Each structure stands twice: as C-alpha cells, then as structure tokens.
C-alpha cells in the first residue's frame, strides 16, 4: 500500500526541471521532503497530485492514478497547497465542509476541526484568522476528505513553534493510524524529530531518501543545501543540525 511515482518527469513548458524521479510514500509513514528554494519540491508535490502536468507513472495502492476517477482520487489523496486565496470571505465551517463533501463516508466538520485543535474557530471567517489559524483550518478541510495519503506543502509555515510541534506530532499520530503523509518543509530539525523518512531534493534534481539519522550527515546535507552544518549528536535521539 503506497503512493508511488516512477520515471516521473516534470517541467514548465518544454523545460523539464525534474527528470526520471522515483518516489514512494508508504501508507502509515510520515515523510518530509526538503531541499533548497527553487529545487522543485512544490512542483513535485503538484505533479504527484496531478495538478501539474507530468510524464511517467503514478500509482495509488497499486492502481495507476490515470485509471482512478477524479472523485475516487480525491478520496484517496488529500492535498494542501502552499498558498490559498479564497475568492470570498468563506467561514471556517464552509471551507471544512468543502473537504467533507469529497469524503466517501460522512464526516462531521466539528471533529475535523477538533483534530487540528481549531473547533473554537467554527463560526469565524477565514479572512479574520491569523496565518497559523488559517493553516490549521485548511488542514482540517483536507483531513475532512478522509484521504489515505496526505500531501502537504509547507503546512507549518506561519505557525509558531508550539503549533509547529503540535502539528507535526499530530501528523505523526495520523500516520500511525495508517495515513501516508508527505510534507514539504524547510525545517530540517523539525522534520527529523517527527518524520520516519526524509527525502532531500538536491539542486541537480536528485532525490536522496533515508531515515533522519541516515540523512543528517555531512555529505547529503552539503549536496542538498550547498553548505556545511554542524551536526550535534544526541543520545537515543536524532542529531540536531545548526549552520556552521
């Protein structure tokens, strides 16, 4: 049971920016995709969802995604983009309900909001919320789809440290319940702390995959970010990296 991509080539116009990418997100795993700005992380996520054109094979639980109907695909795969600009001032309840409409089984808006600690925002309008509150509410909308796989583009952006930790802890718990989660983030330490698997997208469009302990070493970090980092080991924990 996995979301798989093989031989995926993605580009803008006739210029490919990612070639022959092989990628796998296991059901029940929490992985993070990291890389420098402009490496193509968001584009790769969009290509996996199908909102950006790509060549190659994408499969959901063994079935080619092109053979799944759009609704079935949305029931299996939830996606939260980096930026959302609603056309009108939607209420929180309205925005979560849009996700619930896609779900195969009925789901309550309140329980979706509760899962991201945002049930007190139910009757507010999206445009009244802080950046962090908005991200949590939008995530609740994606969770309301009850997907088997979640692709999140920088869900922790604009969240304070406490809410970042809460969100990643929550994502890890969701993965333990069987969801396959792939999350784009810039925070290597946060990702290493919570994720089972890290994927580094290098400037040469190569993907380095491994556990946090495997990837938080000098060579993959330098190849990906073009910088040297100090790697601080911790007993029984993944190391912490700081810029040198």
């Amino acid at each position, binding site marked *: 049971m996995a979301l798989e991509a093989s031989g995926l080539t993605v580009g803008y116009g006739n210029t490919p920016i990612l070639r022959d990418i092989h990628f796998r997100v296991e059901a029940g795993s929490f992985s993070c995709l990291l890389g420098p700005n402009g490496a193509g992380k968001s584009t790769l996520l969009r290509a996996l969802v199908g909102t950006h054109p790509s060549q190659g094979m994408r499969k959901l639980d063994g079935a080619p995604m092109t053979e799944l109907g759009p609704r079935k695909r949305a029931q299996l795969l*939830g996606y939260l983009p980096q930026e959302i*600009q609603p056309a*009108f001032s939607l209420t929180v309840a309205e925005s979560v309900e849009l996700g619930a409409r896609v779900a195969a089984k009925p789901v309550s808006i309140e329980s979706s909001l509760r899962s991201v600690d945002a049930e007190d925002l139910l*009757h507010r309008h999206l445009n009244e919320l802080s950046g962090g509150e908005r991200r949590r509410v939008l995530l609740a909308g994606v969770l309301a789809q009850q997907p088997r796989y979640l692709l999140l583009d920088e869900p922790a952006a604009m969240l304070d440290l406490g809410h970042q930790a809460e969100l990643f802890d929550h994502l890890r718990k969701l993965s333990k319940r069987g969801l396959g989660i792939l999350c784009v983030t810039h925070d290597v330490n946060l990702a290493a702390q919570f994720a089972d698997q890290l994927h580094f997208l290098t400037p040469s469009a190569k993907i380095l995959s491994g556990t946090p302990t495997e990837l938080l070493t000098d060579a993959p970090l330098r190849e990906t970010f073009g910088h040297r980092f100090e790697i601080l080991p911790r007993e029984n924990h993944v190391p912490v990296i700081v810029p040198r």
Partner: protein
Amino acid sequence: MNFPAAQPRRCPLFLVLGLATAIALSFALAFGSVSIELLPAIYDWWNLSEDQWSTGTHVLSLRLPRATLTWFAGGALAVSGTVLQSVLRNGLATPFTLGIASAGSFGAFLWLAFPALGVTWFGMPLFTPRTGALLFAILGLALVLSISRRSRHPDGLLLAGVTLSFLFGAAMMLVRHLADPFRLASMDHWIMGSLEVVSFQAALAPLPWILIGGFLIVKNIFAMDQLALDEEMAEARGVAVGAVKKQLLLGAGLLTAAVVAQTGPIGFVGLLIPHALRPFTGNAHRRLLPAAWLLGGAFLLFADLAARTVQLSGRHSELPVGILTALIGGPLFLRLLFRKS
C-alpha cells in the same frame, strides 16, 4: 479570544424573498399609469372571454408579459453576475464585464441604424434589432470563450472582457456617428435599457437560452463552491477546473445574452444582488443562486414599477429602467461596501 461570527440566517430568507417576489409581482400588475384592482381583474382574465373583458383585464393582459420579462431579466442578470463573480474570483465582475452586453448592443445598433440589413422572408422580418443583439452577444461570448482557452489566469479573461467592452463600445459609437440623425432616438432608447413588451411571445423569447444557460450552471453548482475556495485545491478534489469554468462562462454568458437581446443593457442588478445576499446565504451556491434569482427578479420588478410611475419634469414617457437601476443600485452598492469595510 475568539469571537464567533454570526451564523448565516438561512431558513426565513427564502420565505422573505418569496414574499418580496409576490408583493413585487402584485404591485407590478396593479400599479402604473392606471391602477387596477388585481384580484377581480385576474378572475375576469381567467374566466371571461376577451369581448367581456373590463379595463382592468385589458391592463392586466398588457402588464403580465412585461412583468414576466422583468422577472426573468432580473433573475437571470443576478444569477449571471453571481456566477461570474465566483468563476472570475472577483467581486467586481458583472454580467457585462465580459463584453457580451456591449457586443449585443452593437448588434442592435447595427440593425437600428441600418434597417436595410434586416432580411425578410415572405414579408416576415428575420433579423430585428433583438435578433441582431442576440447574434452579436453570442458572437461576443464565443470570442470570450476562445480567449479563455488561451488564458488560464482569471484576470486575463477579465481584462480581455473589459477590452472587448471598449472595442464594441467604440464600434457602437462609430455606428451612431454614421447613422441618420432621426434614428438616434431609438438607439439611445435601446442603450438605456427597456422592459417594454406587449406579448407573451416576446416576454418568453429569452426562456430557451435561459434554460440552456441555467442547466450548465446547475450542473456545476457544487464545483463552483470548490472554485471559490481555491482553483488548485478544487482540481485536487476532482473538479475539472478548465471544463467547469468554460461551462459556467457559457451558462452565465447565455443568460446575459438572452436578457440583453430583449431588454438592452440593465446595469447594477448583477453586481449588487450577490453582494447583498452573501451575508445571509453564505457562499454555498445551492442557496446563493436561487436567492439571487428571487431577489434579482423582485428588485427589477420594483425598479420597473418606479420607472413606469415616476414622472420627471412633466414628461409623460416612462423613465428608462437602466437609468433607475443604476441610480438605486449605485448608492446601495456603496453602502454595502462601506458597511463591509
């Protein structure tokens, strides 16, 4: 601290709108240059033969087609404006933003200025200003849709629509410049919008186009909600964004073309109504669109009643309804804007 926002008040809204429609329709039938007692007139109109009719019945038989057209026009313009605001993701979009009304008006101007263009078949006019307006409104719509195929960006379509409006506006002025001066009055009358019809045949002429446009809109009513949140998320949730937008543009465009061809441009209904309703209906189109039809229809019925009954500086001809909707709608829209800010 989180302050809960007011829940949209939904249940009584349709009751209020239904009541407003009934009152507007009754007033539109009963009042005008001559007032009639409505219930006896309706009874006679239904039960008596035409040679037994009273004055009231005759008046009613003239007002009923006009009220029908007015209700269709108000409803269709309000729905078209609501759909276009959602599809173009712009609260300033109106049924006329895409240039369809200007294209239609150009078609009407062409036939009004040069009646020789009117082709007859066994003495029956095949092309009238109204068919000319419909032809060019649909041509304008086709132009807009072909532009939408090239541009995925909603603002691109909006700007193209505004440009088309200017182009057809300039073409209208050119036609006006070339026309015989004695034809100018009828052209001016057209451009100010009018709901004058005397037969059910004319009143129901927009209906087929409204039905086709309405079908395309209703078919995509749930997808429209997803589009209003975010186009990329909508696509990820299974909405075929490109196809849905095209169908909605075509639907809204057909509603506008159908109305403009029959009445000329009547402004502000399509801009004002969606803004007035969203605080009460919320953003779900399954509530917003029927409410927009009802309020748009009632608003235009009242505006037309005022246009028929208000006399300015002793003139006995009725005031063009397009002027009145702008005079009423403009300040109301500004009030809504200030209240929102």
